[in-house]
């Protein structure tokens, strides 16, 4: 008996036991673990910020107007990020690329500001090894800056994928939303750092 070639059945729609996208679930679990990571760094800073035997004390070197502007820039990058998501949800790829590039640019301005701030602090005598305060400050803000930098690369990757037609109308919104979640998380971590580290006075 000869076998007839049979067309492959269409791939079944991806279903999960929770009814939720597993990748999005994993992203939220990752963000939950990142809360612990940054929570530990911020806690360490709070416990050690008054331990300055050598070098400048926190509020002798913080430039609040300068940091306020860079905080505002990062906050506004969250607005451009959600506008990018809204653009791809309505199939507007040009709008998506514009808003993603705006987000990446605002993130780059923030990172540029952080590099300038670190340079100014080093010039004023605060280095990673100057005091426990210096170590806690540079490790915490440095890790945050590294997260923002990774986010910028992910945003630029999305722009490239959109340019080369790798973001379909079907799964494109989900990919943008996942990167957006990461970006907003980095933003809310800075909301906490800006208040707790920069604005709340030390003893």
């Amino acid at each position, binding site marked *: 008996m000869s076998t007839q070639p049979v067309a492959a059945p269409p791939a079944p729609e991806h279903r999960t036991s*929770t*009814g939720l996208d597993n990748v999005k679930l994993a992203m*939220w679990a990752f963000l939950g673990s990142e*809360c612990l990571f940054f*929570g530990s760094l911020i806690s360490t800073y709070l416990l050690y910020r008054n331990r300055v035997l050598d070098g400048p004390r926190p509020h002798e070197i913080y430039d609040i107007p300068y940091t306020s502007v860079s*905080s505002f820039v990062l906050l506004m990058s969250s*607005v451009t990020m959600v506008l990018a998501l809204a653009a791809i949800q309505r199939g507007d790829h040009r709008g998506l690329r514009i808003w993603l590039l705006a987000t990446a640019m605002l993130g780059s301005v923030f990172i540029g500001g952080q590099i300038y701030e670190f340079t100014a602090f080093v010039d004023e005598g605060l280095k990673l090894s100057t005091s426990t305060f210096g170590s806690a400050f540079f490790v915490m803000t440095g890790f945050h800056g590294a997260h923002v930098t990774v986010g910028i690369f992910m945003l630029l990757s999305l722009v490239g994928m959109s340019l080369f037609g790798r973001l379909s109308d079907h799964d494109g919104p989900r990919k943008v939303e996942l990167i957006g979640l990461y970006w907003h998380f980095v933003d809310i971590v800075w909301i906490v750092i800006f208040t707790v580290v920069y604005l709340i006075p030390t003893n």
Partner: protein
Amino acid sequence: MTQPAIEQAPREEHELDHHPEPRQYVVVGVWLAIVTALEVGIYYIDSMRDLIVPFLLVFAFIKFFLVATWFMHLKFDSHLFRRLFVSGLVLALIVFAIVLVVFLARGGAVPEISGG
């Protein structure tokens, strides 16, 4: 009788369709800018020195809440995402509390680190 969880799958697409409009995102962005301005403004008011910490914490909470609920869509998405995220936050606070208690048990002294 409860429905099997697998039959709830279409809900996700439904939720994606109910994300806010761009105009609403911009309105939230304006509120974030206003709260940030208040936050920085209060820092420079000398008469508020005694109350600055609670005010700043409230402002930070408002900003955190706005970004998490509107921009990260916790207000619109599945409650499971919210639980995962809040679990991380609560665990972080518990870790901080435990470390603080350990330090207080040592007489309130932060352990010495050479060079610090």
